[in-house]
């Protein structure tokens, strides 16, 4: 087990280097000279030269790359180009609000999607099943934007059940007052695709021999579905959940933007709008690292879910 983890971590290094290289090429070469982006349109040559020296872009490519690698390793990307706030500080302070919305959202979404998917998989082929699937397909096709705009207008602006937007300082207020509508919207948006996907996972299991055996020995339907089928279908569900975990951090960027929640997703949008390269670079690299870590975690969780899995 330990050997496996060490080997996997070792194998991550080339990918990490690749991510660093990709981000480096993207921001230092594809977009042109970053000094011009930072200096903006009104600037003289002297200013630009100063900025170039400051950013290190007057150095040879290898030195520039080394500077970037050092930044990644020490988590010191300097200050944001637009607000002068330290990038590490931005990331640290924006994580909390994002997690306040996304943590409950992930838990509720997983519980609801699994529960509903089990239910419709159990009555597969029936009118209920088909209706739910049609509703899901249509629900999936409506743009996320439409959900957010309409829900925000209707529930917050028109009915006044929730605040239209905002964020406070106390955690409980944030969670129960300001996050409530964002979480509701997040649920509406994410349940449809997850329900559809989990249903197919359960359908794969429901016709297996072990289900018939369990029925033959007189187990209750509840036990068969919740214990036997769920456990066996958990591997693809774990894969799906873990693969989506880092993306989730950004996935709610639209919600964060609409509701002015000072989270990571909103920060990305702001950074892109302001061409704030250090923030985007830092986020891209670290979220990529988080993705690799969660992939490893997913593989370890397989083992826990299914003892037959051999980690190689």
């Amino acid at each position, binding site marked *: 087990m330990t050997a496996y983890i060490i080997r996997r971590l070792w194998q991550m290094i080339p990918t990490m280097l690749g991510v660093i290289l990709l981000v480096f090429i993207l921001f230092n070469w594809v977009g042109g000279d970053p000094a011009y982006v930072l200096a903006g349109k009104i600037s003289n040559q002297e200013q630009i030269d100063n900025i170039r020296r400051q950013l290190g872009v007057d150095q040879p490519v290898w030195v520039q790359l080394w500077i970037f690698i050092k930044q990644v390793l020490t988590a010191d990307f300097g200050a944001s180009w637009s607000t002068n706030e330290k990038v590490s500080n931005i990331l640290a302070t924006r994580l909390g609000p994002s997690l306040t919305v996304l943590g409950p959202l992930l838990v509720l979404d997983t519980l609801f999607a699994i529960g509903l998917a089990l239910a419709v998989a159990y009555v597969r082929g029936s009118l209920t099943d088909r209706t739910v699937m049609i509703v899901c397909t249509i629900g999936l*096709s*409506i743009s*996320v*934007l*439409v959900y957010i*705009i309409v829900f925000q207008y209707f529930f917050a602006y028109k009915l006044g059940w929730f605040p239209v937007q905002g964020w406070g300082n106390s955690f409980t207020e944030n969670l129960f007052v300001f996050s409530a509508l964002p979480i509701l919207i997040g649920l509406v948006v994410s349940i449809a695709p997850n329900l559809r996907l989990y*249903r197919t996972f359960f359908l794969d299991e429901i016709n297996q021999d072990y289900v018939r055996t369990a029925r033959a020995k007189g187990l209750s339907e509840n036990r068969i579905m919740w214990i036997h089928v769920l456990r066996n279908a958990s591997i693809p569900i774990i894969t799906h959940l873990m693969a989506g975990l880092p993306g989730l951090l950004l996935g709610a960027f639209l919600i964060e933007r609409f509701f002015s929640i000072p989270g990571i997703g909103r920060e990305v949008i702001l950074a892109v709008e302001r061409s704030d390269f250090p923030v*985007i670079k830092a986020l891209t690299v670290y979220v990529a690292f988080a*993705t690799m870590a969660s992939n490893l975690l997913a593989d370890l969780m397989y083992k826990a879910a299914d003892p037959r899995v051999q980690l190689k």
Partner: protein
Amino acid sequence: MASDTALKPPVRTLREVPHTVSPGLWALAWKRLKSDRVGMVSLAIVAVFVAMMIASGLGLIAGDWAKESGVNYAPPTFLGADIEGGTPAAPAGPAAQTAPATEYKSDVVDPLADVLAEIRGEKAPAGAEPAPAAGDAGKSVDPLADVMADIRKDAKAAAPVVAEARAPTLPLGGDKWGRDVLKKTIKGSETSIFVGLAAAAVATLLGTLFGAVAGYYGKWVDDCFNWFYSVFNSIPYLLLILAVAAVLQQKGTLTIILILGLTGWTGTFRLIRGEYLKHKAREYVQAADAIGASNVRRMFVHIFPNVSHVVLVQLSIYTVGFIKAEVILSFLGFGVPVDVVSWGSMLNEAQNELILGKWWQLASAGTAMAILVTAFSLFTDALRDALDPKLKGLAGA
């Protein structure tokens, strides 16, 4: 031995049995697709949208989408002109009161309206000074009169043509400047579908090319591409798109196609690579090798037709995804430029209009997109079932 005996009988029977051409993969798939009613209906809807895109691209329909043909925020025809009394659905208070529901010629009314708008427009920044009688009356009914006058002034500045007929209602309503929402939706579908299709073509092409090379050559080539794949795959897709959008400063339809296409190839790569790994060891490829076919010929003339159904399904899946992505990017202002209308930019405008109670642009763009995406998704499912019946059980029909 076994293959020898299996091979001989068909050679003999071929002469005895009257020769019939057995249907190929595509003919069979088409037959299966035709029997799928949902698939055919969705194909028809998709075809209508694509026809709309082409017609709009050629300038046959909705060419004059930017024309301000209706009054500001003209309501949809089926609601009538005066759904919300007192709101500035009509440009000039007096005119609207005399002839609320009928279409009027602006050469009769507009001169007055213009003066009014000008007065309001000039008065508004000066502060809360008492306006002339007409303007005052307008104000007392409607708190947004000043805003409307401003907007109207902007609209006038943009289009100095004064003597034109402005309809009080439009088929699906009008936007802030009185542009026809129906025409905007059609024009928007042109942008959104074109971007979706073109970006899907780029992504599928790259994925297929990389996947074919990696799967076919294997060894270190495969390792290289796999490394490349894992690098791209470890950055969440959306973040990658936004990062590229941040770097590419110039906005344009081509830019957004490239952003989506260059970042989206990984899914196809994985699938095609697997297919090539499987196919390269098959007998027909060995036979191609034996008759002296080059590597490239084996990859693209011999193997490719056998995996092309995977490519087609991928193309379809990508198109749906990219249409959605384009709408979000354009909404955020990272997509198509401002002078190009897309469903995303329409939703962006509609967001503010909704607060004023003008919901029709939101409804039009949202519904058009939902219909297209639903039809395209159902068509994709049908296409996959038709091309690969083995998958049907997995999809859970």
